[in-house]
């Protein structure tokens, strides 16, 4: 457990003052660290269930919305409709957005905790789980590939040449892996009217990728992706879907009652069996099971074949000592994201989350007053937007309970908060909601001219230029 010094009630900076109010509803202000779905849904909950609480959202990028902007696939625009609600939140007079502010830089968590009644950690999971094998440096993280085609500024330097790649191997059996496979195998002209970046679209148009193999270490009944995404693969015209049908059939038979008891698994296996092996065109998508990568080289990946051990819902992959070499021009790993610690807050190194009970951050089992967590920082990097929404609402409810019960002290009045933010160097370079909307209008107009919902600006410098910061 990282060493964590509990913030004492005394103020470090003599020019700020602290009010300990006994009236729970007055002067409650909340700082939210991380302006993605978790942060916005927590704010939405606070707005709907309080009357006076003000909220300041801090986000390290100029642009808000986190993975809704940079993670959701370009061909899933309806999933991004949740941004409408986020807009309602940011345009509420009780909410202020501070983009281009990294908490943990010149603005510290300790400073926030000294100025606000409560602070919510909703900064997500910015790191990547590794394979831990030789040649890892040759492997491209799927999240980087996704971030690249979605326009995340720091991912724009991705150095891959799809013209020289015929076969891609993706390690991982989750929805992110499927997103990558789909983007690689979809006809680029079907992506031209999405918000995929111009650079990615052009690279995909010139791509020579014909085959994508998605490899998992366990079997068909242990896949982590969902039926919707698999169905989308079956709808790509002329794409051949391949897998070991005998393995799928025998697993389904062996564990028939388990499959039958799970509606989602049963539907997925039915879908897979009804499409796998059908005729098609040149391009193929292969779902491979029971293989763990042991080494990556310029030529491709060496896998060890696995067998499964244990009950079907806790099956473990065990190496058999048999190896398979798979040639590949590009290897992506999609084995999960990882949350990282933030200075000034506790962190559970084993579970890799901010330790908490129902959203209240804990340290060695004791609740840390005024510190909360929401989203992936709280639960780990799993779950769709709907999951994060419910999770954020639970954190919001915990905050509201604490406000109502008088457990949260008053924060500083707004002008004192601004003084503190100014001293931390935040105000001179932050992006306000208005400025973000101006940037967004620019993107939408640029997109309109080429038939896309938006043409994303892909460099922070350019964003700040357009905004005039």
């Amino acid at each position, binding site marked *: 457990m990282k060493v964590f010094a509990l913030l004492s009630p005394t103020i470090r900076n003599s020019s700020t003052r602290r009010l300990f109010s006994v009236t729970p509803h007055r002067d409650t202000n909340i700082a939210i660290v991380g302006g993605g779905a978790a942060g916005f849904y927590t704010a939405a909950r606070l707005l709907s269930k309080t009357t006076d609480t003000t909220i300041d959202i801090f986000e390290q990028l100029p642009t808000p919305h986190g993975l809704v902007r940079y993670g959701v696939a370009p061909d899933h625009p309806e999933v991004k409709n949740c941004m*409408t609600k986020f807009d*309602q939140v940011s345009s509420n007079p009780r909410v202020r957005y501070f983009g281009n502010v990294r908490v943990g830089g010149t603005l510290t968590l300790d400073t926030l905790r000294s100025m606000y009644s409560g602070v919510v950690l909703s900064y997500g999971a910015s790191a990547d789980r590794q394979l831990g094998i030789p040649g890892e440096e040759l492997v491209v993280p799927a999240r980087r590939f996704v971030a690249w085609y979605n326009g995340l500024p720091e991912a724009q330097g991705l150095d891959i040449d799809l013209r020289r790649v015929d076969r891609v191997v993706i390690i991982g059996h989750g*929805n992110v892996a499927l997103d990558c496979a789909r983007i690689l195998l979809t006809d680029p002209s079907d992506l031209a009217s999405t918000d995929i970046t111009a650079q990615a679209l052009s690279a995909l148009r010139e791509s020579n990728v014909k085959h994508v193999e998605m490899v998992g270490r366990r079997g068909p009944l242990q896949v982590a992706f969902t039926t919707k995404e698999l169905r989308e693969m079956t709808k790509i015209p002329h794409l051949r879907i391949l897998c070991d049908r005998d393995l799928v059939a025998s697993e389904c038979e062996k564990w028939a009652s388990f499959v039958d008891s799970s509606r989602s698994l049963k539907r997925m296996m039915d879908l897979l069996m009804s499409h796998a092996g059908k005729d098609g065109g040149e391009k193929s998508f292969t779902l491979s099971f029971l293989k763990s990568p042991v080494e990556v080289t310029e030529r491709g990946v060496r896998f060890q074949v696995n067998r499964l051990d244990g009950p079907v819902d806790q099956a473990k992959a065990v190496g058999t000592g048999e190896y398979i070499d798979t040639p590949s021009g590009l290897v992506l790993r999609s084995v999960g994201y990882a949350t990282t610690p933030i200075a000034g807050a506790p962190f559970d190194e084993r579970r890799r989350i901010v330790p908490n009970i*129902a959203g209240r951050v804990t340290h060695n089992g004791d609740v840390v007053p005024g510190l909360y967590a929401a989203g992936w920082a709280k639960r780990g990097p799993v779950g769709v937007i709907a999951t994060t929404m419910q999770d954020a*609402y639970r954190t919001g409810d915990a905050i509201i309970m604490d406000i109502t019960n008088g457990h949260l002290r008053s924060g500083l009045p707004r002008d004192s908060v601004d003084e503190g933010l100014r001293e931390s160097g935040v105000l001179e370079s932050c992006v306000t909601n208005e400025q973000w909307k101006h940037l*967004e209008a620019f993107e939408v107009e640029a997109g309109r001219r080429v038939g896309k*919902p938006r043409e994303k600006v892909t460099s922070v410098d350019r964003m700040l230029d357009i905004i005039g910061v």
Partner: protein
Amino acid sequence: MLRALPGTPGLLRTCTRIAMLSSRAFTACRTPVATHQRKVQHQQRQPLWPVQHAHRFSSSALLSKDVTVTFIEPDGNEIQATGEEGTNLMELAHENDVDLEGACEGACACSTCHVILEDKVFDSLPEPTDEENDMLDLAFALTDTSRLGCQVLLSSDMEGMRIKLPSATRNFYVDGAKPAHH
């Protein structure tokens, strides 16, 4: 506690429905709708078409019948709601401040408008599409008579139907809770 809320005026509902049917065709090019601030304390419901546009449509004789149903929130609170035939249950809930989400705004791309219908109503409806079933797979507390509210349209033979909202809470506070898919 039974509370009867007046439904949105019929004209606005008609206009909202017309606007929504056309706005659905442009879902792929959706841009964030311009918001206007409302001083309401409960969850803000944004119609799929900005309210001010509704006034451009002239009133017309409403040929669709009004249907009255009851929503039952997870805490037992009952809300009576009246809507026109053809309104989907998610919109109807939103128009009547029922505590039902709709993250993807009716695009069948999430599971947050999940509702539980009475057996006979469920059985009388056409089968959900594969797309709806794919989303229902992910819904929490799924039942045999669950549907996505945005995919079920009011019809006159649903008069008096009771719609249950599933309990939304998962055991998030329990350490080691089983991870969901993403």
